[in-house]
Structure formats: C-alpha cells, structure tokens
C-alpha cells in the first residue's frame, strides 16, 4: 500500500502541479498571470474556399477546418437563416480560431487568437470539450478525448491516494487520535460549505 501511494503520487506529480497552479490563477483574476487575454495576439486572414458538401453544421465545420489546416475542438456554431453564412469557433489550449464563412461567395475570414503560456494553463484546466450547461455537446477532437481521459485518471488517482493514505494512517495506533482530529476538522469544514450553507441560509 505504501508503494502504491508513493508511486502513484510520483506519476501524477506534474498533473497535480498543473491543476493546482491553474486553479489558483482561475481563482485570482486580478493577478497578472490571469491577464493573458489582454495580451493576446490576434491575426485575421481571408481566403477562398471550396464549399464542402455537408449535411450538418459539424460536418461543414470539419470540412472547412481540413481546408484551412485548423485542428481543435469545435465550439459554438451559427448559421444564418438563409444559409448563406456560417460561423464557428475552434478551440485548443492557447489558441482560438473564429471562422466566418460566406457560403454564397465561397470565402472565409479566419481570426486566430494566440494566448501566452498562462492562457494555455487556464485552458488546460477547463478543456473538457463538453459543458454542464450544454449537455448535448460532444467531443469531436481526438486529443480532447485524450486530455479528458487524463483528467479522469487524475481524479481517480487522487481518490486512490486518499484511500491508500487513510489505510497507511490507520496502521499506526499512536497516530489514530490526532489523525482523526485532523480528518474530522477537514470533513467538518467541507461539510459546512457543502451542506451547512444551504441549511443555515437557504
């Protein structure tokens, strides 16, 4: 059990550091590290395209992305009511592409936004490809799926570290009482926020 705790902790070390540091930055928008959007680099280019024969919006976006050499996770999509204009966004950590396509004239305008390392950090923390607010959205980029698997692995790994840590603690009778106090304090604090606030003030 000690080996499991040690080796798993060592394997997950860099992932824990990433999510810890990016979590801190997300919670402190006034920090200079969080001001990455203000120093973004934005470039725009226009070019002709061959309009892909596609039935749905995702197919159309994917076809345009292939032509334009853009890879990433497709975000918001918007088609005009007449069907002559189509806009969509493609996201990958550190980069955002806004594609405005004129289907009638077979031309696109692509705005590329590049963010600095802090922007990459920020995006990696949240890059799941899905959203609780839009449950119908699915992941369409293979690397988004890889990263989301990594996030799952980290979450499960942390739970295993907790369980193995509890096991390792309980093996030492002399440490049980002070350990119980520490654990109890943590549980009480968490429970106050998760359950207590609604009960007291809801």
């Amino acid at each position, binding site marked *: 059990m000690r080996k499991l705790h040690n080796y798993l902790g060592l394997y997950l070390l860099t992932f824990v*550091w990433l999510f*810890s540091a990016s*979590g801190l930055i997300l919670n402190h928008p006034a920090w200079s590290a969080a001001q990455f959007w203000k120093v973004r680099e934005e470039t725009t280019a226009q070019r002709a395209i061959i309009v892909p024969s596609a039935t749905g919006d995702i197919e159309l976006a994917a076809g345009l992305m292939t032509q334009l050499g853009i890879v990433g996770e497709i975000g918001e999509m918007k088609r005009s009511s007449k069907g002559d204009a189509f806009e969509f966004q493609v996201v990958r950590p550190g980069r955002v592409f806004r594609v405005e396509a004129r289907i009638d004239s077979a031309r696109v305008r692509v705005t590329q936004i590049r963010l600095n390392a802090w922007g990459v950090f920020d995006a990696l923390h949240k890059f799941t490809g899905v959203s609780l607010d839009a449950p119908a959205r699915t992941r369409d980029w293979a690397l988004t799926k890889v990263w989301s698997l990594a996030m799952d692995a980290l979450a499960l790994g942390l739970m295993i570290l907790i369980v193995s840590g509890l096991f390792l*603690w309980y093996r030492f009778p002399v440490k049980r009482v002070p350990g119980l106090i520490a654990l109890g304090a943590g549980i009480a604090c968490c429970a106050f926020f998760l359950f207590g606030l609604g009960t007291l003030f809801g």
Partner: protein
Amino acid sequence: MPPRPPRAVFKAFYRWTRDLHLYLGLFVSPFVLVYAVSAIQFNHTLMPWGGVSNAEVAREERVVRVVVSDSKNSLEIARQVRQQIDVRGEIGYVRRKAGSREVRFPIETPGHVTTVDVDLSAGTATIQQRSTGVWDGLTYLHKMPGPHNATVRGNWLVTRFWGWTADVAVYLILFLTASGVYLWTVLRADRRTGMAFLGAGLLSFVAIIVAIVA
C-alpha cells in the same frame, strides 16, 4: 549547549515532515475529494440520479415589497434587496437592460438558488427559491470564486471565506507533493522504481501537452 549532530537534525526533520504530510493530508483530503468528484462531473456532464432536474423543487414564489434607491451600480441595488428580503448567499450576477426599471439576479448557496426579479417602479421583488441538489452544490464549490463576473464576485463574506479556503487547500496540496517527494527520496529501496514512475508521469504529461498545444 553544543550544536546537535546532523543525524539527529535529519531525523527530527524527517519525523516532522512525515507527520505534517500525514496530518495535513488527512485534513485536506475531503477538499481533494470535492474537487476530484466534481471534476468527473464536469468531464462527463454528470448529475447523478437526475441531478438538477430531479432535485429541483420550486418551494414557493412570493412577492415582497422593497424600498430601493435606484442606482447605476446594479450590484448595489441587488445588495439592498438581498438585505430586505432576508435571503443570504452570493449574488451570482446582476442583469439589467439599459433604461429598464427591472433588475434580475440569483442568490446562490451550494445546492440552492433564489431568483429575484425586482420591479423598481412597483417597489416589489418576486422571489423564487429552488433546491438544485448536492451534486450541483459540488460543482458550484469547484467553480467558486472563479474568473467569471469578477466585479461582483465575493459580495457575500462566506464566498470570500470559501475562496481563501480553496487557496489554502491548493497550498497544502503543493506542500504535500513537496513533502511526499522528500519522504520518497529517503526510502532508498523505492528510489529506482520511484524515478521510473516519476519519469513516466513527466513523459506522458509532456507528450500530451505538446500534442494538444503545438
């Protein structure tokens, strides 16, 4: 008093680090569990057992009279109303169209939302309270305080306290990683295998990041 021999100092440092790793790890583990479980929820848009739609119960809709001085600062209006209707929680955001005399805002606590619609002309506030469930409460705590609506965030002291608690949890986790690495290096038998796991983790981390970002 003569200086303590290095071995005794090393032993004392090791014991202190080991005990701090243990007890601080125990203390922070419920917080880590909150973040880990909610991370899986975010990753899979999971709201178990029906989540919000099943847990949502419109307890009541009530209309109360409020006395509010109009202001360009919509948050200030929301604060005045929150105090008068005696509902406590974090004002999530404030919505008011330009020139409108109607203001809308939610008051949130983990697992509960109170939506307030204020009619400044009529001097009334329509209040609707609903429970969103413990799973929604978990994701709410994970996101708070967060980068969004930064100008209104922290308008309730308890939310600010949670923000500080979240910071402390992160710093404790960083300490646990540092102390954990130290405790591992002391164990000679585990060094080689540990280096392999550390290297494998670093390699997979770098490989994925480079593939996504490059």
